[in-house]
């Protein structure tokens, strides 16, 4: 791949990426969340088209207009979320949409035999008649790979295949990959886990902020070098210098929070005026913690102590009444009602404040909305503008404003700057700063570690639902977080 660039509105997702993969190797692709790995692979597999750049495959220039196009040339991507149809058999899934036989009749014998052949190539003996629903996740992955092979794939891209696998299943996956390589298939392997990279990959390419940092041979590269490559940039000026704010007393204590399969014994405290960062990789349980505290999901064990009292938050309404707010990760779906005007969005979490005897007082609503627009400098022509017409950064501010209006004392911000361009980012940082200046407390969840370090007083690092350590914001470095988050 040569000089691949791809921009999305407001973000340059890929910037002149060069990637060279050799035949018969397992090529690792590394990078933090949002570094552009998935985007690059989508380009390579024809899901999206690059703005610039060229792709050469087997010394031949290729252009893919669709995934089908790429498949026919022999490039297949296996997504993290598997794309099998659970109610159909293994064989039907492998040959989905192209079963053998005449126009009106399926030749099942042929289909099953061919399916068996491809499954064998993957190194598994699954019965092609098994219904996919009854398979383990690892087996489903094998079926996906067999399906890829049935397209005569020469290059298989695996997007974080290990994220859904446990120890023994992982071994199975590696064996499958080894079988593939023996047959001359090339694999691009995306993962966060360095041990896996060491074990299975020949060479790696590290990506950061939409650029390829470099390609190395795994055996000659130390772990420190890799981590440095992933984290890369120093904390630049894009983060504001935080004023030191005197921390008040403890406002929230999370004690031994446990949610089956997601969180184990999570404990931490939050003080008044504090920004507590929560770091971890995808799947580490960051969002789950936020939703538990906010009452959006239930937890199995543990307790929450808020302002000195043990509390039970059975639903978000209770949490909002208490003064806890969650600015969710998916602001368009969960934070806003995009087809409603700004003023309706602002007041939806505190209808009581703008009503009397159950009647909405419109002048009060408008007054409050204008005030919020000003306070957070939201850029909009009017408070009657529909939320859908605002930019991502301004939408985010609207969600924050909603909970400010509901008088929240603790704001949990889940990825507040994801998908937001640099300028708006700074403004959100200013908003966060103002929050704590006014005595609010912030629980900041972010995949951008540099951002976490710049903003947070303390950072709690999670790994697979457990607290792996706590760092002070002034001492932490991205490398330290990554080391804790990986182990």
């Amino acid at each position, binding site marked *: 791949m040569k000089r691949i660039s791809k921009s999305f509105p407001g973000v340059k997702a890929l910037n002149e990426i060069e990637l060279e993969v050799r035949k018969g190797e397992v090529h690792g692709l590394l990078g933090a969340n949002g570094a552009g790995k998935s985007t690059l692979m989508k380009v390579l597999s024809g899901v999206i088209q690059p703005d610039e750049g060229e792709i050469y495959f087997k010394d031949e220039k290729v252009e893919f207009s669709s995934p089908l196009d790429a498949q026919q040339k022999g490039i297949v991507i296996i997504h993290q979320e598997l794309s099998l149809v659970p109610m159909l058999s293994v064989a039907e899934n492998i040959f989905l949409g192209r079963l053998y036989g005449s126009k009106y009749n399926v030749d099942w014998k042929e289909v099953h035999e061919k399916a068996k052949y491809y499954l064998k190539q993957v190194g598994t003996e699954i019965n092609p008649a098994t219904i996919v629903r009854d398979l383990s996740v690892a087996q489903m992955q094998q079926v996906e790979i067999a399906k890829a092979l049935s397209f005569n794939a020469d290059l298989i891209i695996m997007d974080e295949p290990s994220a859904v696998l446990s120890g023994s299943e992982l071994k199975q996956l590696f064996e499958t990959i080894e079988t593939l390589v023996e047959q001359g298939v090339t694999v691009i392997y995306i993962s966060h886990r360095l041990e896996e990279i060491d074990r299975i990959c020949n060479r790696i390419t590290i990506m950061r902020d939409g650029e390829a940092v470099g390609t190395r041979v795994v055996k000659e590269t130390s772990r420190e070098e890799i981590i440095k490559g992933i984290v890369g940039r120093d904390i630049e000026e894009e983060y504001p210098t935080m004023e030191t704010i005197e921390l008040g007393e403890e406002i929230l204590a999370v004690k031994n929070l446990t949610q089956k399969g997601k969180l184990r014994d999570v404990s931490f405290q939050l003080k008044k005026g504090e920004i507590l960062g929560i770091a971890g990789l995808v799947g580490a349980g960051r969002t789950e913690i936020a939703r538990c505290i906010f009452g959006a999901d239930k937890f199995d064990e543990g307790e929450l102590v808020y302002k000195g009292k043990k509390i039970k938050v059975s639903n978000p309404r209770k949490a909002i009444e208490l003064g806890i707010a969650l600015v969710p990760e998916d602001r368009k779906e*969960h934070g806003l009602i*995009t*087809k409603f005007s700004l003023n309706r969005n602002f007041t939806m979490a505190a*209808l009581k404040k703008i009503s009397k005897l*159950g009647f909405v007082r419109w002048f009060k609503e408008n007054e409050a909305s204008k005030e919020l627009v000003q306070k957070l400098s939201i*850029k909009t022509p009017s408070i009657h503008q529909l939320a859908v017409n605002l930019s991502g950064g301004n939408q985010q501010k609207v969600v924050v404003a909603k909970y400010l209006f*509901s008088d929240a004392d603790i704001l949990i911000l889940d990825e507040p700057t994801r998908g937001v361009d640099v300028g708006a980012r700074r403004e959100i940082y200013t908003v966060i700063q103002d929050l704590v200046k006014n005595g609010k407390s912030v629980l900041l969840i972010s995949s951008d570690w540099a951002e976490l370090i710049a903003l947070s007083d303390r950072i709690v690092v999670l790994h697979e639902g457990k607290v792996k350590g706590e760092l002070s914001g002034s001492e932490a470095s991205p490398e330290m977080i990554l080391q804790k988050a990986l182990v």
Partner: protein
Amino acid sequence: METVTEKRNETQLKRMKSKVDLADLGPVLALLILIIIGSILSPVFLTKGNLLNILTQISVLGLGAIGMTYVVIGRFFDLSVAGMLSLSAVLIVGFQPFLGTIGAIFAVILVALVVGLINGSILRFIKGDFGASIMITFGTGTILASLALLYTGGFTLNPERDTVFTWFGNGSFLGIPAPIVTLIFFSIILHVVLKYTTFGRAIYLTGANHEAARLSGIPIHRIRTITFMIVAVLVSIGGLIRSSQTLNASPVVGVGFELDVIAAVAIGGTSLAGGAGNISRTLVGVLIIGVLNNVFVLMGLSNYDQMMAKGLIIVAALLLDRRKELKLVRKG
């Protein structure tokens, strides 16, 4: 740069406003055209007698439709209104000997509240969505319809014709027939509640985005259950009017009622996607159906022609609604 986007936003906003307005006006225009056609086709059409006749005929449908508007704005559906209409029509009459007419009315309203509560609670229990609400209320509606038949053994009941009972179907207030007065009365209440109260606001928010509303602390399940209770109560009053109008209580009076109700809501332009719509729109939809039926009768058309026309209009209304939705989605 900033001003450019702002300007663009503004023009976008203006353009959207004008487009939405046009779509809003569609049903009103359709109604006007129907009225003009009616007055050309028949000299009787525009007489006071005929107009009051139209309004009297649509009042039961209207009561169901304004209630259904609440449910639909909350992004649910209630097919049990048909069974509810039949059951309330016979129960009123059935309770009369034991509780007196007024007692019977309150008893039936109580039954309606319970039916709404059950519909809402089942949906909450199974965490049902729009599709589930169709199936569930189809089921409960069938049960209600069969209860009506079981209760009467399939026969029509004869009511006691006291003044209270006969008033609802045949009386008048200030010279206006009682069914129309009842419909106007409840329309005003529902309109005010929907537009001016926090409860009304909460229905819109719930229907527009279930999860966002929940995360903003709105008790979405309670809101939705209450909308089911409201529609059931309004339909039960409709049952009372129907029984009083005909002076007998038929256990099959509600058959097909749910489709008319939904047609009226949809024709009026209340979005089936939830979060939008209002009472006046629905009333326009109800009027369209009423005027259409009247014009057909005046023209001497058969029932079958009427069915065809109604079907076509529903499809057209939904196409219009869909186009509006798509425009919004594209904006997003």
